[in-house]
């Protein structure tokens, strides 16, 4: 009984220490002495790695998710003669939920795991220590550009995801199943609100971007510098990011769209 209590205590303390280290990394990378102009080229390079290279998976999944939603929604809505509401159904589910959430999950799998592995390997091969030897702060030189690149790229990816998904819904709903093109767009326009739906979706995806990139760089920076440690850190990045995104999504939805 006593040893069980001690285990619980040790586990809690470890978690708290990890949160503390993560906050230190965030502080050192973002808040303490930022050099936006000097590090801007590094951010561009990282945006290419995490943003541009994720574009294909985002566009393809967005297209297919929009198409599937139009197909599924149509079979239900047509029973009530309400297939004109297909547009708002596809647009609202993409803008409010699927766009930010699925983008964040894909981003964690595609870019987050790569960030963790890269930084972890830098640590294992003592590149980070070498930087410190040369009086270059690895937090500012390595971590900060990756954090910023993730934070900027992911909301953009989420917007592209939603837009492509709506086009996919149009492809299936209008061009294939024969929903009226005018009612697809006009009822969508009448239903979707700029602030309520689009801006809230972007806010969601900014929060997810922050959480996913933070977890990714922290797991890499904090990894045990062995091959086993890096593999564990990469797995944990994907698992923790996905859980955090899904959990936060409920909280944010309750705050934004709840009563």
């Amino acid at each position, binding site marked *: 009984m006593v040893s069980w209590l001690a285990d619980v205590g040790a586990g809690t303390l470890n978690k708290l220490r990890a949160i503390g280290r993560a906050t230190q990394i965030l502080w050192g990378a973002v808040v303490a002495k930022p050099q936006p102009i000097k590090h801007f*080229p590094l951010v561009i*390079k990282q945006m290419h790695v995490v943003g541009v290279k994720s574009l294909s998976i985002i566009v393809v999944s967005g297209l297919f998710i929009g198409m599937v939603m139009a197909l599924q929604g149509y079979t239900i809505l047509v029973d009530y*003669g309400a297939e004109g509401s297909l547009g708002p159904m596809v647009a609202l589910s993409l803008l409010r939920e699927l766009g930010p959430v699925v983008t964040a999950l894909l981003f964690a799998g595609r870019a987050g795991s790569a960030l963790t592995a890269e930084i972890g390997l830098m640590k294992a091969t003592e590149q980070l220590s070498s930087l410190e030897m040369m009086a270059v702060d690895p937090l500012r030189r390595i971590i900060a550009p990756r954090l910023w690149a993730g934070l900027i790229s992911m909301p*953009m*990816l989420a917007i592209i995801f939603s*837009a492509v998904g709506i086009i996919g819904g149009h492809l299936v709903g209008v061009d294939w199943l024969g929903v009226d093109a005018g009612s697809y767009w*006009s009822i*969508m326009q009448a239903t979707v609100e700029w602030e309520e739906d*689009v801006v809230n979706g972007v806010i969601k995806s900014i929060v997810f971007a922050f959480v996913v990139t933070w977890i990714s760089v922290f797991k890499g920076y904090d990894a045990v510098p062995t091959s086993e440690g890096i593999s564990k850190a990469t797995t944990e990045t994907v698992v923790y990011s996905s859980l955090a995104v899904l959990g936060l999504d409920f909280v944010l939805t309750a705050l934004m769209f709840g009563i």
Partner: protein
Amino acid sequence: MASRKIELMVGLFVVIAFAATMMLAMKVANQGMSGNGDTYQLLAKFDNIGGLKPRSAVKVGGVTIGRVEKIFLDPDDYTPVVELAIFKEYNEFPETSSVSILTSGLLGEQYIGFQPGFTFDGIEMLKEGDYIEDTKSALVLEDLIGQFLFSRDND
């Protein structure tokens, strides 16, 4: 040179994201998507337009011949005026034509049903900017229920 290429790709990424934002904004701002092909404008006055919206369809026997361009209130007699954009290929409607606001299905969206009139001597074709005189307003379900209850009381 390699970094130039990376900058180019990131620039492209930003432009695509901006285009996607614009697309989402247009959907909300309710502009763009200006139909397909040339149109001409007809006007119709209604007592009540119910749930008619801009970009609703105008149909003859189920075939879409145009869209509702805009809806505004006549400043003189406070009746709603609906501006219809009819495709140029359907430009042979006599001025005895009538329009009514119909609902597709029980819960569906509202559209304008266009009934072409008869042609005989002295009847001209509808031109750009003409008013369609014969209009039937939207059925408002609440009014209908009210009338039904009222008529039951009389029995």
